């Protein structure tokens, strides 16, 4: 196979990736888009084997095939078995290993090129190593946060700001050192410092902002792939990496907009925020808790009910039960809708995916902008395992971590029912004043069990 044929087929793979992203942007074509992307990636991988060394096969071919097989054996079961609730952290992890792979590719190519590397190649190598390592260690930290293996709150180290500044300066300085000296050890030191910087960079990010950071790191990894494509003079890698980098940047901005924050605020918010005032008020205060029967009665005599799902719904796998409840209410002539906050759950669109699994009719899923004006006419709002997205503190408490985030105005409705596991605050760790409001009823317990009880109580009425 000639180099021209190879590059042409590489271009074909690149076109597949463009069509994949295009397809993924619309609900109708999303699944096909993903498959086209997979096709492109398969084509790109297969032709390397055919092209290499004039078709005589790759050096170390058995080892390469074995490594691929091993990767498939790890990746596919992880992707197949993961629960819906854990998908965000899996995506973070996949992104991290991709960034790590890009950094390793750059390091190996750098070792091979030795003194033969051009300045531009060394610069691209340093870029790939820095960004790839940041993406790797940063994604691992986001994984640990989402998996709740470590605290989901912003971690603010003593002298955190200075530490970050220091580590970013040292990363840039060692990067410059690599370019000036073309040495191997400087590159390794640079890689280690970049790993450290990635950790420091993500630690202060608060739980609710983690999805935005995953998206940003995803865009970063795309750019490293483009840069290593430049070093390897491989156009397909440049196209694929740049596409991901560019679309990832736009996507990150869209997500940040959906949460009503600037990207800058997300990344550096933890440094500027004062110790939040609202968390101090955690003393025991009276709340009104009700039985499943109370909740059933409230619902039964309502004319309009809005269900607000959150992460608790996902954890309890209660999507089918909530649908049963909604169907039951609808059969009684009650107007039922779901109020979907763009970032309810742990990822944008998380709730849509979950409720779609339970075959909830698409028309019942109403986005925030459309549902908010209807709350004053709503009799009962049923909040299932959501907290931060309905927390009025986002409007009333300047300085709290979610201040400025658009919320669902459930406090405008006649009655609010919270299904909660406990009085524990939400992912962002902020007390919710609405829980103590006179029109609020709390039903404690696992969302699925609570809903099942409400459904049978409602049937008995």
């Amino acid at each position, binding site marked *: 196979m000639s180099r021209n044929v190879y590059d042409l087929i590489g271009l074909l793979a690149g076109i597949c990736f463009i069509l994949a992203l295009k397809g*993924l*942007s*619309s*609900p*109708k074509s999303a*699944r096909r*888009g*993903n*498959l086209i*992307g997979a096709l*492109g990636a398969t084509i790109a*991988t297969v032709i*390397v084997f055919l092209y290499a060394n004039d078709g005589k096969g*790759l*050096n*170390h071919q058995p080892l*390469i095939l074995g490594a*691929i097989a*091993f*990767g498939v054996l790890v*990746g596919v079961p*992880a*992707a197949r078995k993961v629960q819906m609730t854990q*998908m965000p952290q*899996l*995506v973070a992890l*996949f*992104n991290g290993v*991709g960034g*790590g*792979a890009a950094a*390793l*590719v750059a390091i*190996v190519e750098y*070792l*091979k090129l030795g003194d033969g590397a051009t300045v531009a190649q060394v610069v691209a190598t340093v870029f790939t190593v820095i960004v790839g390592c940041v993406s790797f260690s940063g994604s691992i930290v986001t994984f640990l946060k989402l998996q709740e293996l470590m605290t989901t709150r912003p971690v603010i180290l003593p002298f955190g700001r200075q530490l970050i500044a220091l580590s970013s300066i040292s990363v840039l300085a060692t990067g410059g050192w690599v370019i000036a000296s073309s040495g191997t050890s400087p590159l390794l030191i640079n890689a280690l410092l970049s790993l450290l910087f990635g950790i420091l960079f993500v630690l202060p990010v608060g739980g609710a902002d983690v999805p935005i950071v995953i998206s940003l790191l*995803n865009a970063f*990894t*795309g750019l490293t*792939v483009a840069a290593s494509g*430049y070093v390897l003079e*491989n*156009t397909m*890698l*440049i196209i*694929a990496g*740049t*596409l*991901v*980098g560019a*679309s990832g940047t736009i*996507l990150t901005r*869209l997500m940040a907009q*959906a949460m009503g924050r600037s990207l800058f605020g997300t990344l550096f918010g933890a440094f500027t925020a004062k110790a939040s005032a609202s968390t101090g008020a955690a003393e025991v205060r009276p709340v009104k808790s009700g039985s499943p029967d109370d909740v059933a009665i409230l619902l039964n005599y309502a004319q309009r009910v809005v269900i607000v799902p959150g992460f608790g719904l996902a954890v309890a796998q209660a999507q089918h039960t909530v649908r049963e409840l909604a169907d039951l209410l609808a059969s009684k002539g009650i107007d039922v809708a779901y109020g979907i906050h*763009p970032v309810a759950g742990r*990822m*944008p*669109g998380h709730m849509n*995916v979950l409720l779609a*699994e339970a075959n909830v009719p698409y028309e019942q899923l109403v986005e925030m902008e459309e549902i908010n004006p209807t709350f004053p006419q709503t009799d009962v709002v049923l909040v299932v395992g959501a907290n931060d997205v309905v927390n009025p503190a986002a409007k009333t408490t300047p300085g709290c971590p979610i201040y400025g985030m658009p919320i669902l105005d459930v406090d405008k409705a006649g009655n609010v029912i919270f299904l909660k596991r406990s009085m524990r605050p939400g992912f962002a760790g902020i007390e919710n004043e609405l829980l103590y409001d006179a029109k609020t009823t709390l039903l404690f317990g696992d969302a699925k069990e609570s809903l099942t009880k409400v459904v049978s109580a409602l049937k008995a009425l």
Partner: protein
Amino acid sequence: MSTELALLAIFLLSIFVGFEVVSKVSTTLHTPLMSGANAIHGVILVGAIIVADHSKTTLELTLSTIAIVLATINMVGGFVVTDRMLQMFKGKPKAKKQSDEAGGKN
């Protein structure tokens, strides 16, 4: 056009295409789109295979083998998990979907 310039042109044009294709996407699809894009950058696997092929020393070969494993996990796992997310959407308003599609083609 020199190689360097051609690569630069490809890079710049790809940026615009990347911006353009995702500029209008509903929040519902943010997560699958992020996950799909994440899988696409798994093609760094190709780069990992190329450097493994070039490897002369044990160190180079070890590092590139690790890179192959990581990139494969990223790529294959990424596409599978995206497909699983999108599976949840299917079978929903099927009739509506098709009529939409037909409407769009007119």
